[in-house]
């Protein structure tokens, strides 16, 4: 029997499983409310209590909504951040860099984070370019900036691989031309003067003799490259006085082939093989004493594993916060219901069973919890959108919050806990001394 159930469960799609879990969390609350509302006509009295204590009710709902919203936002954001970071690395199949930290190399190459990286020997590029199973070999040269935007030197083929044809203008065709990312403030026709380095330490005068004419704007990629200025690899070398990497006969050329004898070192090379198997073979072949090859996806998966742990901690913290808030709200409810004790005593005096009084107080508390939970989903969605906007601006990775059914299950579990807790003050108020409250 267990095997049949297990087989059935695993035959369901992930979405169906999530929906089933959500339904399971919602069912006890729904059934309990349905039974109580069917047995007793408590709605007018619950309405009266809500109206009478509307200020406190609004505060209670707002507190619950905020705590639920915080949890919902964090979970959706973490998922969105994870997907956005993975999407940003999509076009970087394999990266070859000098031995060191693959995380640093990935952050520098994919996310254009400032890093001090050793340079690869020119022979590495030559070895890669000579392989028949390689579709794309794109050296990257970074370290400079333009008005705070990272300046990256690479090949036109890689720019095309990353962002496709420019949305406006055309690709660069000489070492004096640049294309800009979709999110930069630069316009076609602008003349850019690069600085050596990044940020506060950038030397604005180091490349004073260099300028680039913006000839194209790339399509948005949702990656930090949207904020970059991209120039021919040779332009970076020339700006640093390293020549252009080509034989004398090829002077003025941009893009491969490069002359191994004249080619300066580069910090990283993005490689795309013609098959998955070939990618793995390349990774083995190019991991050695003077080079390392890695899949950014694997590095990200490692980081995401770490994020997964953080997510569990965040989820637990969010749940604890929510339960604490609900406990505070329930305590508030107990005080509030105590303030209506005379009314409840009147109900008992008129002959209402204790169960009826319990039902009124419990449904009243449950309405607050459920309203807070539902509102919290909306608050969480808005907060996640705001947070995503902030993160997108801060990281240049296009983060979109990803709400999931599993998040709703957490809210439903929280609501169940809140509804169960609401029974405590309801039980207390229904058991008070009728006579004493009537005479109060």
């Amino acid at each position: 029997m267990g095997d049949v159930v297990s087989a059935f469960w695993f035959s369901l799609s992930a979405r169906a499983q999530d929906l089933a879990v959500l339904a399971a969390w919602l069912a006890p609350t729904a059934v309990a409310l349905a039974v109580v509302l069917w047995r007793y006509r408590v709605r007018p009295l619950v309405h009266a209590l809500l109206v009478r204590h509307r200020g406190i009710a609004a505060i209670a709902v707002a507190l619950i909504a905020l705590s639920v919203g915080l949890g919902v936002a964090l979970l959706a954001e973490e998922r969105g951040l994870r997907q956005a970071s993975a999407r940003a690395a999509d076009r970087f199949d394999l990266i070859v860099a000098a031995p060191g930290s693959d995380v640093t190399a990935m952050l520098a190459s994919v996310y254009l984070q400032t890093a001090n990286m050793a340079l690869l020997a020119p022979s590495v590029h030559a070895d890669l370019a000579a392989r028949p199973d390689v579709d794309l070999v794109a050296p990257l040269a970074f370290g400079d900036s333009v008005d705070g935007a990272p300046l990256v030197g690479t090949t036109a083929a890689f720019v095309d691989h990353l962002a496709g044809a420019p949305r406006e203008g055309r690709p660069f065709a000489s070492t004096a031309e640049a294309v800009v990312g979709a999110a930069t403030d630069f316009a076609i026709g602008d003349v850019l003067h690069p600085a050596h380095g990044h940020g506060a330490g950038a030397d604005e005068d180091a490349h004073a003799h260099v300028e680039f004419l913006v000839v194209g704007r790339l399509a948005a990629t949702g990656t930090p490259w949207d904020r970059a200025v991209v120039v021919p690899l040779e332009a970076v070398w020339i700006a640093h006085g390293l020549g252009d990497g080509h034989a004398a006969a090829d002077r003025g050329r941009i893009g491969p082939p490069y002359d191994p004898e004249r080619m300066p070192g580069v910090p990283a090379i993005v490689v795309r093989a013609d098959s998955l198997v070939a990618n793995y073979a390349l990774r083995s072949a190019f991991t050695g004493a003077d080079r390392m090859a890695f899949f950014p996806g694997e590095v990200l998966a490692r980081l995401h594993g770490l994020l997964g742990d953080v997510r569990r901690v965040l989820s637990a913290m969010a749940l604890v916060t929510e339960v604490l808030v609900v406990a505070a709200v329930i305590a508030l409810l107990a005080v509030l219901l105590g303030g209506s004790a005379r009314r409840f005593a009147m109900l008992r005096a008129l002959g209402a069973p204790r169960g009826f009084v319990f039902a009124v107080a419990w449904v009243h508390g449950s309405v607050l919890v459920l309203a807070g939970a539902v509102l919290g989903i909306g608050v969480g969605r808005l907060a996640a959108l705001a947070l995503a906007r902030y993160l997108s601006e801060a990281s240049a990775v296009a983060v979109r919050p990803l709400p999931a059914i599993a998040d709703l299950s957490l809210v439903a579990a929280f609501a169940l806990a809140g509804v169960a807790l609401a029974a405590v003050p309801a039980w207390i108020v229904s058991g008070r001394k009728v006579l004493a409250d009537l005479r109060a």
Partner: protein
Amino acid sequence: MAGPSGAGKSTLLLALAALDERACGTVRWGEDDVLAMSAARRAAFRRERVGLVFQDFLLFEELGAFANAALPGAWLGTAKRTATRRRARELLVRLGLDPDDPRPVERFSGGERQRVAVARALASDPAIVLADEPTASLDRAAADRLVAALVELVAGAGRTLVVVSHDPALAAAADRVVALADGRATDTDATGVDVTRRA
């Protein structure tokens, strides 16, 4: 029931309603000793036999007249609830109130509110109505209207009305007046209500 403050009128009324668990002695309803019943049976006794009117109305102020008057149906089964709601509507009309008035009763005058309370007490068709100083919060004209309506409705339905009151007009409308002093029935009432016994 008449008598000075502290004479025990309200205590006796609450004992009759099976609400004062501390009361000594017995309150008999037929063969049953009401005060000896369990809490659940006492609640059932009130539900089925007793209508209550309080001095300060004790209405749900945020609800309308009909919702308040039909309140005793809220914890009853469907058939009894339907009958209670029908009676509540009829009673409100007979008491000069509009059952469909959407206003919450907090906007009603004191007299109107007490009439809603009377409709609520009678909506479940109780055998006995216990009223604790029902006219105390009303002006003379409103009190007179209420007394007339209360007596007419209760007597008209062949039910019993037990009232705690200092109101001579209400005492004059009663078949029997019991004066209380220091928790005991006496022949004279210090408040000046004419204590009489009629058949």
